[in-house]
């Protein structure tokens, strides 16, 4: 394991710890577990199912590309993270549109604040990477692209969570 790999591993562990406390912060009652009602549970189940099949299709496409020996213009890290983003985006998008993303004990204002903060931080890191020429090397998207993907995901979730939707109609 080299220094870069160790740094990434430490970053992931710190991210998981921060996420654990962020969930407590998001919930009004300070509980780790977000509570959903019966309709939300059903919608979220559908959302996970759609996200699962979306990922299966995405992986099948990647498999075909691999068999055809098509080289993708990105590092493996960016590719794997991109797949994670696709899965989360589909699950979150479907849940948000159907009023099942926020649980009964979630604090929407805090959630929105954290998502915007994460978006801005990742966007700044991405801009710095673009300016210093670390985003694309030899025609391939490099690891800083993960920050851009993260900013896009959090930004879209934050915007979607505040725009009016059919499920919100009285």
């Amino acid at each position, binding site marked *: 394991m080299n220094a870069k790999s160790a740094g990434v591993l430490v970053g992931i562990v710190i991210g998981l710890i921060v996420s654990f406390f962020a969930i407590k912060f998001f919930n009004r009652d300070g509980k780790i577990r977000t509570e*959903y*009602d*019966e*309709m*939300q549970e059903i919608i979220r189940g559908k959302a996970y199912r759609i996200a699962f099949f979306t990922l299966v299709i995405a992986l099948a496409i990647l498999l075909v590309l691999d068999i055809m020996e098509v080289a993708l213009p990105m590092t493996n890290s960016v590719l794997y993270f991109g797949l994670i983003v696709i899965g989360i985006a589909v699950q979150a998008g479907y849940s948000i549109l*159907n*009023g*099942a993303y*926020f649980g*009964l004990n979630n604090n929407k204002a805090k959630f929105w604040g954290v998502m915007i903060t994460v978006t801005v931080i990742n966007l700044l890191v991405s801009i710095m990477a673009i300016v210093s020429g670390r985003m694309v090397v030899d025609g391939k998207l490099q690891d800083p692209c993960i920050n851009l993907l993260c900013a896009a995901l959090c930004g879209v979730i934050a915007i979607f969570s505040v725009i009016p939707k059919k*499920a*919100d*109609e*009285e």
Partner: protein
Amino acid sequence: MKNLKLKAARAGLDLSQDDLAKRVGVSRQTISAIEKGDYNPTINLCIKICKELGKTLDELFWQED
């Protein structure tokens, strides 16, 4: 099919969807979906709603032919 009886009973007690949702422990979107006929609640939720609105299951959820 829209549940106008539920909507009328709720409005009769001057409760908003959010008020009723908090009293029965669900999201406002769920009450909205039940009133619009987009979601069929479980019997447990039906009973909770009936108790809060002082109505019977027949009065709120029985569909006339």
